[in-house]
């Protein structure tokens, strides 16, 4: 008598079922893959720190001046670091053909891409948000704004990941997609930048930040609703190209 294998294979009734299963599978796979490439995860963080280092060198070490421009600098540098990491969102999967397999899955592509973007945010946006206060110290960021800095970056970088994924999906099939990706995505990033940096500046001025954070939340909600469809459509265009 043969032993049944220890693994439990869930019985699915139709091909379209098993969305939760597919989502968790995608999440786990992407997490494991990205964590294996630790360099890729650390690169944006190092880039963030480097760019912040460049500005006092390029402008002036005067703490008063730096304190004035710190919110914007931190936000712009974090935004650029997030942009840098976007190219690898789909590229390795595109290169080895697993992206095509994803397209063939019976589960809705929009949901699966959401899982991929979530992993990207978890390993890029969130670390950037957590690292930002440390760099804020280096830029003489005034007290009382550090928490808002981290929260606004955490919230905003999720939106940036979603919007950026659209650009990444559109350019993944192109040979020199990297620069084009920046051109496509940066104009769309500007509203997030405005309200994110605005939140930090409001915190410094002692004003209420709830409005800014609420708008950042609204932008995230809109992106969560609309971006996955655009990402899915873009992936189909890039693969079927």
């Amino acid at each position, binding site marked *: 008598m043969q032993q049944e294998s220890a693994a439990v294979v869930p019985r699915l009734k139709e091909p379209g079922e098993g969305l939760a299963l597919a989502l968790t599978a995608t999440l786990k796979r992407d997490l494991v893959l990205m964590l294996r490439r630790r360099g890729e995860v650390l690169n944006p963080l190092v880039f963030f720190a480097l760019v912040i280092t460049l500005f006092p060198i390029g402008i002036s070490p005067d703490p008063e001046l730096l304190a004035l421009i710190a919110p914007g600098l931190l936000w712009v540098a974090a935004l650029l670091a997030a942009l840098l990491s976007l190219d690898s969102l789909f590229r390795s999967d595109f290169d080895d053909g697993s992206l095509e397999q994803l397209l063939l899955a019976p589960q809705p592509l929009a949901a699966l891409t959401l899982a991929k973007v979530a992993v990207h945010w978890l390993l890029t946006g969130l670390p950037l948000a957590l690292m930002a206060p440390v760099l804020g110290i280096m830029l003489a960021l005034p007290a009382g704004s550090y928490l808002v800095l981290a929260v606004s970056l955490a919230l905003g970088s999720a939106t940036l990941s979603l919007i950026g994924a659209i650009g990444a999906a559109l350019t993944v099939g192109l040979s020199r997609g990297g620069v*084009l990706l920046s051109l496509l995505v940066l*104009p769309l990033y500007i509203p997030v930048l405005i309200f994110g940096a605005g939140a930090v500046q409001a915190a410094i001025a002692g004003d209420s930040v709830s409005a800014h954070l609420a708008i950042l939340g609204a932008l995230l909600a809109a992106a969560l609703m609309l971006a996955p469809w655009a990402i899915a459509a873009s992936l189909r265009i890039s693969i079927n190209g």
Partner: protein
Amino acid sequence: MWAFINKLRSPKWFYAISARLQPWFWALAAILIVTGTVWGLAFAPADYQQGNSFRIIYVHVPAAFLAQSIFVSMAVAGFVFMVWKIKVADMAATVMAPLGAAMTFVSLFSGAVWGVPTWGTWWMWDARLTSMLILLFLYLGVIALRGAFSSRDSGSRAASVLAMVGVINIPIIKYSVEWWYTLHQPATFTVTGRAAMPTEMWVPLLIMVLGFYSFFIALTLMRTRNEILRRESNKRWVRELAQET
């Protein structure tokens, strides 16, 4: 109405009908723009605050309107192409983009130049100019993306997706930039509420706006026809066209 839309699927039909519509729009554009130019430059009164530099409004505002409308038209054409697979829609979207970018540039240039006598500076990060600058980048992105694909159909679909994403973002960008500007407005430049423009000032403006829109339609019709010739050059009706003339 559906019969009309179905006819649109045929580039040949569009080519024929646009040939008849085109001269009217060119004539309209010429008449309106010349009238508006003469009126705006020579007959409209000068602004009591800004003097004669105020006349720049007669090119700046129409160009700005057109820049935004063309992006919306481009996105709509892209949507029609993606949903109903109407090739002519994509051809129209392809030819609209450079005109839109040119109008955005004109709006930026005239807006910046206008700033010199008004604000004493060559560039001003005010809400409108900043939004126009971002719009220019969006246009350049669509044009670049379309050209980056080796397959024309892929490029068309990618550009359509980007145009639709962009058009959703335009109001968001405008709102956030305006909010950002009012927050950071330098104390010296308080925006005085514009007093209602007297008739002699806004009628030429309306004429110029209509003239620019006619120009947009006329130029798009002509360039779409060129695009049809280019893409359908192997079809029999195009060959016959080349033979008879």
